[in-house]
């Protein structure tokens, strides 16, 4: 009887050790709602910095139309010859700024960070219903952010149809260059982002 009980304790210990967290499971592919909330917070903050930086750039050009700023040439290269922003990139910055602020800062901040962190704590639950899906959700968000940021570097320029993306302007590359690969990446990024709540 006692040996049996001893076995049971050992079994239990063994099982417990099996769940020991490594750096990867704790900080990267974490299923803990509090860690996922922090991941959202950090990603959202980085996207926020990018979004705000864009808004500063295009508002500088708006405040001083046609004026040359060396920083434009340094950051935007061929899109700002002699430091004066090209009309195409101005529209692109407005578009991507709007998209980032609405979908990548508000989503990350409100649902990603606050809901994830606070709701289980407020209602006294141990975690979200599915920790695994919660983790997948964050990584889809990360992938979607990465694709959106990568669209800034394509040769034909990022999406530039305004954040409402009305076709046919957004659908035809002959209407504007940003409706080529840039818009395709924008759509791929948005499609992945929309998987989050599913």
């Amino acid at each position, binding site marked *: 009887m006692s040996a049996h009980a001893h076995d049971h304790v050992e079994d239990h210990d063994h099982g417990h050790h099996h769940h020991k967290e490594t750096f990867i499971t704790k900080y990267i592919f974490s299923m803990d709602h509090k860690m996922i909330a922090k991941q959202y917070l950090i990603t959202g903050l980085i996207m926020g910095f990018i979004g705000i930086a864009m808004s500063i750039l295009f508002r500088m050009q708006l405040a001083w139309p046609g004026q040359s*700023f060396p920083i434009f040439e340094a950051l935007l290269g061929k899109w700002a010859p002699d430091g004066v922003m090209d009309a*195409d990139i101005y529209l692109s910055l407005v578009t991507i700024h709007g998209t980032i602020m609405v979908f990548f800062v508000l989503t990350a901040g409100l649902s990603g960070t606050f809901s994830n962190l606070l709701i289980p704590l407020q209602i006294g639950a141990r975690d979200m219903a599915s920790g695994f899906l919660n983790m997948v959700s964050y990584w889809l968000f990360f992938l979607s952010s990465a694709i959106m940021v990568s669209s800034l570097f394509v040769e034909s320029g990022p999406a530039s149809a305004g954040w409402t993306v*009305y076709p*046919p*302007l957004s659908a*035809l590359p002959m*209407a*504007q260059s940003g409706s080529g690969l840039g818009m395709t990446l924008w759509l791929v990024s948005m499609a992945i982002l929309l998987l989050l709540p599913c």
Partner: protein
Amino acid sequence: MTVLLSIAVVALVGLAIWQLTKIFQLSQMKSEPTQIADDKDNQNNGYLMFAFLVFIYGLTFFSFYKYGKFLLPAASSEHGAEYDNLMLVSFVIIFLVMAITQVLLHYFAFKYRGKAGQKALYFADNNKLELIWTSIPVVVLTGLILWGLYTWNDIMNPKEGEDPIVIELYAQQFNWTARYAGADNVLGDANVRLIDIDNANILGVDTQDPNAADDIVVKELHLPVGQKVLFKMRSQDVLHSAYMPHFRAQMNCVPGMITEFAFTPTETTAEMRQRPETIEKVKRTNALRAQRAAQGIPNNDPWEFDYVLLCNKICGKSHYNMQMKIVVDTPEDYQKWLAQQTTFGASMEKDTTATTEVEAQPTIE
């Protein structure tokens, strides 16, 4: 200027860091740090609520005073007066409700701030109160929506006996073209597939259609005062939006379909230029332009008021500059202007003759 701004930004960031450090230090000085708010904290929060109220109303009235002049002038179209009334009444109602509820919200937050020994009262519900705060918004909103709906119907539906001048507005990246229906007041058929740049048929007007011969294609819109104009809008490429702010008119231009909007201008361009607020605006703008011109900045010639047609839907890189001048004339001046224009039929004939001449030349040689 940039250097000055950069210095200001750096200085302000520095100031913010210094203030944060100070706040941090102050919070550390407390003998017994506690997370529970005491009477003094509640008192401070109560006063801060009031301070915030003063701040938002201060900002609101400052904005009314300082930036009120940037609003559009009173409407220059018949329906515009009704539109402006609807807008004004909506704004006044929203402003009053907002003002009263915000004062109450902040006052009660102050009045019932936390005090030692004071307990919150649990207030379940009060049907009478709920009935009042539900029915008042219902009545007010229904009134506003119905008024809006009737105004909309009145603006959008043509009335019996009206014989408006028909004008086509044609949008393309990034300019506007207008086509007058001419003496018969019927526009000739048009299709994007009939566009013939070589023969200057930029709107794709059907040359076989007899109604098209007297059409007049122009790049500057002239309208007679006091006469209803019906715009039929087309777009060649992407979505555009024909926006005539002074007439309170806007309608999307959609490729593949014809959209319509009609209005009656009530004031000529000359009359509009004599309005005190227009004179003031022109004076203000030209003072700024003169200042810029003195600094050697180009494109700062003196400005004169004109009505404009703008594009109000992002349509590409030069969307910001897609516009056409509108001139509202007296009926006599309008007729005079119209008589000077070449009809589509005549311009086609001229072109055909020119082409035949060019083609004929080599044979002569």
